[in-house]
């Protein structure tokens, strides 16, 4: 990033190449579609580029990057709310065969569980994630996939550490409740 700050165009390309997958992994669960998630990814990198002159390495680059990502995601959500677009879908597409209602039934024990294939578990988990509010989702994903500490998550999301603790606690408890019926049927990923 220091090279980008100093005007190295190749360094910026390398930065995008290294971080776009990771950014997409996070933003894909904060945007309704993959296409919109990629738009958010581009917006994040554009903001990184435009603010390159002001970058100072006072913290990890990833903390700074995800601060921008958090702002971009929040702005997109607020903008969408203002335009009264379709709300974030709470049920996935029908082809996945998984909805929040299904998950609720499974949690209540009314629906018989069965051995799930890995991709089915993926859909179940994706739906469970979608049931969390955006801040819970963001904190959870940063903790899980970016291995951020509570301090780093707090910096990125402009929250206090106790607030992050509370967010993660509620998020993980919600996940536990929703996914409990599927835990016994989980297939291990290929090892």
């Amino acid at each position: 990033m220091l090279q980008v700050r100093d005007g190295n165009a190749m360094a910026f390309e390398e930065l995008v190449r290294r971080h776009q997958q990771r950014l997409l992994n996070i933003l894909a669960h904060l945007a309704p579609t993959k296409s919109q998630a990629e738009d958010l990814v581009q917006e994040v990198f554009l903001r990184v580029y435009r603010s390159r002159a002001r970058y100072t390495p006072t913290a990890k680059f990833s903390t700074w990057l995800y601060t921008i990502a958090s702002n971009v995601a929040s702005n997109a959500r607020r903008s969408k709310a203002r335009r009264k677009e379709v709300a974030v879908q709470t049920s996935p597409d029908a082809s996945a065969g998984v909805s929040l209602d299904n998950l609720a039934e499974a949690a209540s024990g009314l629906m018989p569980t069965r051995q799930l294939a890995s991709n089915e578990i993926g859909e179940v988990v994706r739906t469970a994630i979608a049931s969390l509010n955006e801040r819970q989702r963001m904190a959870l994903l940063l903790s899980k996939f970016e291995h951020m500490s509570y301090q780093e998550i707090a910096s990125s999301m402009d929250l206090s550490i106790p607030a992050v603790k509370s967010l993660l606690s509620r998020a993980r408890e919600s996940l536990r409740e929703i996914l409990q019926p599927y835990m016994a049927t989980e297939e291990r990923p290929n090892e």
Partner: protein
Amino acid sequence: MNNTEVSDELLVAFLDGELSTAEMDEVRDQVASNPKIQQRIEELSAAWSMLDHLPQPKPSPTLLQSTIGMAVVSAEEEAQQARSAVPAKSPIWWFVGAAALLVATAAGFGAVRFFTPHPDQQLAEDLPIIENLDEYRDAEDIDFLRGLANSELFEPDESNDEL
């Protein structure tokens, strides 16, 4: 300590390694001695592990290029803004600048006039000599001429007035 005394927040922080050493030891003791707490820990861990099954979408093949393209456009816009960001001076500053230039010009002119004598000035000063140059050439000694000038030989003769 029973099941309700260990909050989910504490258990999650325990799993994330975000507790102090003393707190970690305390929770560890609770987990070891309380089956319900142990079950909650296991379920929280299992749900956490299931996140590994989350689909990870691959970026579109054109995402990198289009992102770089947008940065290039941004850089061009920045350059354009820098070129057109010459401060627009208000008319008053033009007047101030012109007045300063005028004063500087006048001061410079005056200084040149003061310190550089006019070429004709020297001629004017030398005019009496130039007018009598032939006579001065005939005189061999300038001191002799000075002495004549200071003498009384060329005082006006009052006696000639009666003639």
